[in-house]
């Protein structure tokens, strides 16, 4: 059995540095399943309740999510997918071609680490459901460190299982997501519908009044900041910023037959980041009303209360289907740093790091801030790829300069990345702008910096660039 498993692992071919062959390309339906599964996930059981905890009002939430998710879908379809289906290589290889091997390694390490933490939060959410039969003590909104040995043990078991599935490669991940997705979505909806009578909603017409007075009241819980329409809009748009504007999904959408597969992300946004967030918010409101506004945060037990065994199983499966592609992406990132290692060995290492990170409740309790930070840190490279692909050839500059010239460290890209983040920190510190709002000015700063530095550096190195052109 072990021999068969090992043969299967060695047979995994992910085309890290070669374009995807025609026969391996997938239709939009495959991506609809993948996105719906990935974004109807364990973290939705955290994000929906956190909107309630941060005092979002019902109108702000409904409209903010509608528009924010629309912008996210357009970012996938118009920014990421067109480049993915033209280049058909991973994000990491694309960055190596633009930035050089050394800068790509620095980026990949940061990227891989961020993905590990993100997958860790998903595993932690699953663990809250696995621990139900053992009466696992759960963390509170204010906890940052592991609260018990039994918590660490439960997280370790969930993390190892998730890693084993991720080690089998993209096809297995997509298959698992596709199987689970329709059922997961219905469990979210069913759980929320079934508890509505406990909030006093017995007719559809009663819902809005209860939503504004008892669920999304507009009043934050003690110790939590207040969220407005703009917090919700920008969070919905940018919570996957690393994947669309930051171009991480080049690695996934390179399998698509056409760029229009980018619109399949709507399956994930409007099911997972709309209905699932609303549904989990309703469940949390019931939990708060039954527990006198307790600060304990327990996605597993909340789902178990609302939907029984199916609810708890849903939290486990939802966590694993999200953690899988995230660990897979982190594995690809680290593999570009360790190119001689096989995919499955790298994924195993990444899975172990993820499992360790998952032991810390801070990942879950500060999830909104962490998600915003991870998108922000990786976003400048997405802007660099966008400009390098579309704008550089039109203004007489060389795209993929590192691949053409043999540069190991492209200072144009490095300075753009670093100075964009410095600019975002300055806006945050000086103007007091919250992290959720920094992505947009940051993207424009990166665009301007990369064009200006490109003009300066490539002009300065004119003879070298001309030499490259002669050799083409």
């Amino acid at each position: 059995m072990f021999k068969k498993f090992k043969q299967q692992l060695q047979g995994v071919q992910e085309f890290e540095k070669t374009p995807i062959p025609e026969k391996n390309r997938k239709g939009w339906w495959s991506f609809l399943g993948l996105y719906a599964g990935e974004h109807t996930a364990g973290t939705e059981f955290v994000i929906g309740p956190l909107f309630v905890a941060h005092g979002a009002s019902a109108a702000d939430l409904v409209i903010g999510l509608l528009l924010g998710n629309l912008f996210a879908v357009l970012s996938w379809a118009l920014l990421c997918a067109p480049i993915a289906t033209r280049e058909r290589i991973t994000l990491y290889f694309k960055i190596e071609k633009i930035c050089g091997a050394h800068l790509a390694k620095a980026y990949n390490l940061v990227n891989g680490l961020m993905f590990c933490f993100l997958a860790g939060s998903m595993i932690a959410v699953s663990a809250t459901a696995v621990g139900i039969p053992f009466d696992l003590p759960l963390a509170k909104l204010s906890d940052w460190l592991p609260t018990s040995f039994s918590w660490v043990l439960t997280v370790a078991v969930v993390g190892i299982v998730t890693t084993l599935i991720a080690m089998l490669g993209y096809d297995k991940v997509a298959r698992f997501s596709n199987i689970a997705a329709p059922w997961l979505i219905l469990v979210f909806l069913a759980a929320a519908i079934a508890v509505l009578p406990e909030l006093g909603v017995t007719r559809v017409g009663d819902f809005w009044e209860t939503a504004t007075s008892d669920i999304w009241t507009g009043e934050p819980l003690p110790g939590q900041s207040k969220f407005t329409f703009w917090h919700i809009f920008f969070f919905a748009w940018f919570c996957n910023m690393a994947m669309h504007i930051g171009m991480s999904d080049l690695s996934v959408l390179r399998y698509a037959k056409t760029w229009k597969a980018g619109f399949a992300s709507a399956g994930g946004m409007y099911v997972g980041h709309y209905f699932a967030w609303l549904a989990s918010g309703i469940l949390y409101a019931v939990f708060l009303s039954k527990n006198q506004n307790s600060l304990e945060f327990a996605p597993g037990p909340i789902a178990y209360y609302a939907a029984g065994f199916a609810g708890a199983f849903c939290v486990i499966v939802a966590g694993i289907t999200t953690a899988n592609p995230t660990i897979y992406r982190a594995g690809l990132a680290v593999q570009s740093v360790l190119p001689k290692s096989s995919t499955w060995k790298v994924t195993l290492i990444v899975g172990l790091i993820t499992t360790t990170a998952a032991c810390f409740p801070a990942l879950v309790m500060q999830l909104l801030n962490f998600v915003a930070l991870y998108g922000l840190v990786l976003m400048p490279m997405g802007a660099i790829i966008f400009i390098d692909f579309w704008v550089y050839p039109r203004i007489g500059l060389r795209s993929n300069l590192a691949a053409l010239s043999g540069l190991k460290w492209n200072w144009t890209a490095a300075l753009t990345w670093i100075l964009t983040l410095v600019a975002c920190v300055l806006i945050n510190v000086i103007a007091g702008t919250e992290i959720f709002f920094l992505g947009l000015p940051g993207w424009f700063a990166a665009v301007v910096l990369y064009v200006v530095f490109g003009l300066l550096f490539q002009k300065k190195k004119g003879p070298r660039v001309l030499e490259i052109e002669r050799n083409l």
Partner: protein
Amino acid sequence: MKQIIFGIRFTGLALTILPAIFVFAGLMPFQTHKLLMTIGCILWFVPVLFPRAKANES
């Protein structure tokens, strides 16, 4: 065989969502809804194993 599996899985999805609607309408006790959701979960996931078993035999 394919149609039977489709029927079982469809029943699984129906047992996941319909009981919640009946609870909302006041037509079903909350505990029954939980039990039916569990059955729905089993019906959805277990038949997934069959096509693979058939493929392995061939």
